[in-house]
């Protein structure tokens, strides 16, 4: 081990922070090298100097710290929380019949008003159209009003399978020329197929329905059995 390496290790060596093997190597170097041994001695002295004067703590200050902490803890533990304060206030109020009656009236009034204002959601117009391959389903525009949907039905390729797509239609514009049926559904419900003939499939396999939601990034793909209400429907 050379002097350069030992000089790097001495700060850790004096505190016993290197493993035994390296410590032994440093020790054997220090026995033969006066300069490094002197440096190690200086580091030792520096460490002793640092730990030589501990802070003197007087009892009054320690008592002061403890008293301050305990006062804070006792105040915090005796301080009622928000829920306790509210509960106490409510209990006090309810102990007076007049106040209790007034409170009940207010609650009843608020409930009635809420029930009155809560109207059912407007119905959704669902249009079933046979868009054909030349008219793919259109994504909704940003300014398009919610609650109006079109169903496009078009062949998906070989055989007699059809692809049915539900897309929102534009307010003010007439439906597509190929439009055949209009179904009215609740906005919260998944559109049901009514009447069954409107969604009839001609051959085996599943019917795939793409539903484009108001969010252009969300599309619902729904596979339904070809038979509706236990009967094979007509195209």
């Amino acid at each position, binding site marked *: 081990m050379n002097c350069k390496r030992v000089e790097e290790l001495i*700060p850790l060596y004096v505190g016993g*922070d290197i493993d035994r093997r390296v410590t032994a190597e440093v020790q054997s170097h220090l026995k033969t090298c006066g300069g490094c041994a002197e440096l190690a001695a*200086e580091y030792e002295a520096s460490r002793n100097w640092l730990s*030589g*004067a501990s802070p003197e703590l007087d009892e009054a200050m320690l008592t002061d710290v403890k008293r301050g902490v305990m006062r804070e803890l006792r105040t915090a533990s005796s301080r009622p929380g928000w829920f306790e304060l509210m509960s106490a206030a409510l209990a006090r109020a309810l102990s007076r019949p007049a106040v209790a009656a007034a409170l009940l009236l207010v609650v009843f009034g608020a409930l009635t008003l809420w029930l009155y204002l809560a109207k059912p959601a407007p119905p959704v117009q669902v249009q079933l159209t046979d868009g054909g391959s030349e008219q793919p389903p259109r994504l909704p525009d940003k300014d398009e009003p919610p609650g109006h949907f079109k169903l496009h039905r078009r062949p998906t390729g070989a055989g007699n399978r059809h692809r049915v797509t539900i897309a929102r239609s534009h307010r003010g514009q007439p439906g597509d020329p190929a439009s055949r049926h209009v179904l009215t559904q609740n906005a919260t419900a998944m559109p049901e197929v009514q009447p069954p003939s409107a969604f009839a499939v001609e051959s085996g396999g599943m019917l795939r329905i793409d539903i484009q939601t108001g969010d252009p990034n969300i599309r619902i793909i729904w596979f339904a059995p070809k038979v509706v209400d236990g009967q094979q429907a007509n195209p």
Partner: protein
Amino acid sequence: MPGEVAEIALMTEGLRLSETPGHAADSTLAAIVERAKQGDIGAFEQVIDCYQRKVMTTAWRMLGNQEDARDAAQEVFLRAYRYLGGFKLDQDFGGWLYRIIVNVCRDHARKRGSPHRFASFEGEREAGTFESLASDEDVEANAIKSQQRALIVEALDTLSAKERTALVLRDLEGLSTEEVARVLGSSQTTVRSQISSARAKIKQYRDRVTRRRG
């Protein structure tokens, strides 16, 4: 109960926080901590009795003056009480408390932002530390000690916050490198590097002071 606390305090005095002060005292201390954990303020008062000296000393070394150390110690105990619910009884309470001390002192130093004030001889005399001293020799000896403490604080001020914390825990509080790493949440290699650099800076400072005097 006060006798019991005094016994535990005596056994923990001068020891590392993480060191087991003996089986009997350890189990008693664990029982006290458990009671405190359940919200027993009286039990927590006993915890303060056991650890306040150590907390104050460490905070003083980290922050460099008594006033800040006192504020930090109060905050340490308040924070310890607040987070005691999350302390697991199989954990080392001392190590857990050291982590709080380090965090509180770090927050304190960040808030303070200004250089440390030194615990000078004048300051201590004003605070009444030397009121009870009788002879001139005592006054002189204490003045030298006080000056040395001020120099040490000044030497510690030459270190970065991380170096200072690592050095205080390793060299002044006597924790092992592994324990320091655990308290600081870093690796032993990082801690060794911080300690090595801190010792070198302290030596340089001392050499400067010695040259100035000589």
